[in-house]
């Protein structure tokens, strides 16, 4: 069935499945089949922030004074985050919008993808503030073999789903000959690809991003690159919503009430879902070795970060009904949790500038000129 941007059929969206039902027509938010997506939209809108709100003035000096190997860790981590958010700022829209069939999920997908572009803009803000030439960082992303390795695994499922959905919307189910090749379009296979894509996106946000957050916060734990940490704190707040979104999609698919066939698909794909998590964790551990190849830093090294990879992967697997697959079950980086709590909780305020004071702040530099008007 060809995709239409305004489905002229008269149907009740409350009876449609999340995906592969009728194309959404009226965007209405007064009723939902799955209210969690409406709640996520509202929460994400309330979290809206602009990178320019965060003061990065002390980060430039901090970065210049970092030893070379710590500059490598910081910049490599930032390049990886840039890659991930570049993908996330477009892929949920491109991959999921043509097949979504309930308005609250359609709009959640757009809200989610849009908020990832804010993250991308924040990386430009950070890089501009710490380096005289941002191109040195951006241009190396595609040229760096370690980074490109990550790109392949991160975009693979998205690319396959986008291609197959393209055939499905253009040609429908069946076997078609395209450019001399036989292509089989089968809805059941599409649903399997969708399920595995959502799992891989969950891994991207719930595992890969959180490993990168650990690196960012490790600097701030030493009172370095604190502006960057404040940006990452805001990004982490958004990512918690996003990963909740993919977790909910997965749980709804597994449950089978929304689309009974998806429950069968989820069961069939369980082994592959395990493999997606395990493969990602192994890649993240390899990445940790690259990050720390020239030396580690106080509070973090390849070994501890690898343990964190195992811990966080276990946690995220359990959240979607899979079992622990790695030995590390307790958090080797308990200090990370303090960075994730809400701003209303001041944790050791004397150790970092309180973020809520920075809007419209004055500096505390006083010179003799400032006292010129003063007389006893």
């Amino acid at each position, binding site marked *: 069935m060809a995709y239409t941007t305004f489905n002229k059929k008269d149907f009740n969206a409350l009876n449609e499945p999340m995906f592969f039902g009728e194309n959404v027509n009226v965007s209405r938010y007064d009723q939902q089949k799955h209210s969690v997506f409406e709640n996520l939209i509202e929460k994400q809108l309330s979290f809206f922030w602009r990178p320019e709100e965060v003061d990065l003035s002390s980060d430039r000096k901090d970065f210049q004074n970092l030893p070379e190997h710590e500059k490598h860790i910081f910049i490599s981590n930032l390049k990886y985050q840039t890659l991930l958010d570049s993908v996330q700022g477009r892929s949920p829209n491109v991959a999921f919008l043509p097949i979504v069939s309930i308005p609250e999920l359609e709009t959640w997908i757009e809200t989610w993808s849009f908020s990832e572009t804010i993250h991308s803009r924040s990386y430009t803000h950070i890089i501009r503030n710490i380096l005289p030439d941002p191109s040195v960082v951006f241009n190396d992303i595609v040229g760096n073999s370690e980074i490109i390795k990550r790109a392949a695994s991160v975009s693979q499922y998205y690319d396959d789903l986008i291609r197959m959905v393209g055939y499905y919307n253009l040609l429908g189910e069946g076997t078609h000959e395209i450019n001399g090749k036989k292509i089989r379009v089968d809805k059941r296979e599409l649903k399997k690809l969708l399920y595995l894509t959502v799992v891989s996106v969950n891994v991207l946000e719930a595992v890969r991003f959180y490993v990168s957050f650990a690196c960012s916060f490790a600097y701030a734990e030493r009172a370095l690159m604190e502006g960057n940490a404040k940006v990452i704190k805001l990004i982490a707040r958004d990512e918690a919503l996003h990963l909740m979104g993919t977790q909910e999609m997965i749980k709804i698919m597994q449950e089978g009430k929304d689309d009974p066939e998806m429950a069968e698909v989820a069961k069939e794909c369980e082994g592959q879902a395990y493999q997606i998590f395990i493969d990602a964790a192994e890649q993240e551990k390899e990445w940790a070795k690259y990050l720390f190849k020239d030396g580690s830093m106080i509070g973090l090294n390849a070994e501890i970060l690898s343990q964190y990879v195992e811990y966080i992967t276990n946690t995220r697997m359990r959240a979607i009904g899979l079992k*622990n697959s790695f030995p590390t079950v307790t958090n080797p980086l308990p200090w990370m949790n303090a960075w994730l709590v*809400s701003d*209303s909780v001041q944790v050791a305020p004397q150790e970092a500038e309180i973020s809520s004071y920075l809007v419209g702040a004055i500096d505390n530099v006083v010179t003799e000129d400032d006292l010129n008007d003063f007389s006893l």
Partner: protein
Amino acid sequence: MHRISIDNNIEFEYGMEFSLLDSIEAQALDIDYNCRAGFCGSCKATLNSGEVDLIQPQTPVCPLKEDEILTCCCRPKTDIELQFNNPLQRM
């Protein structure tokens, strides 16, 4: 120190951790969490008895029932009994 009872099954003493969530994690129990900031609702539990102090606002995406709390947002004020939808397991 206040006693924390989980699912009528596991009991331990609160060790002055930052939050109930931290306290439960210190016991190597498989409690779920996402945001640790009071908005995702993953760490939710039913407070069957006792009182808690709030350490950060509870504003979960899916509203809490009257006797529910977010463990990342609370500390025990008295001895407490908690119940989880999926009983917690030792890891």
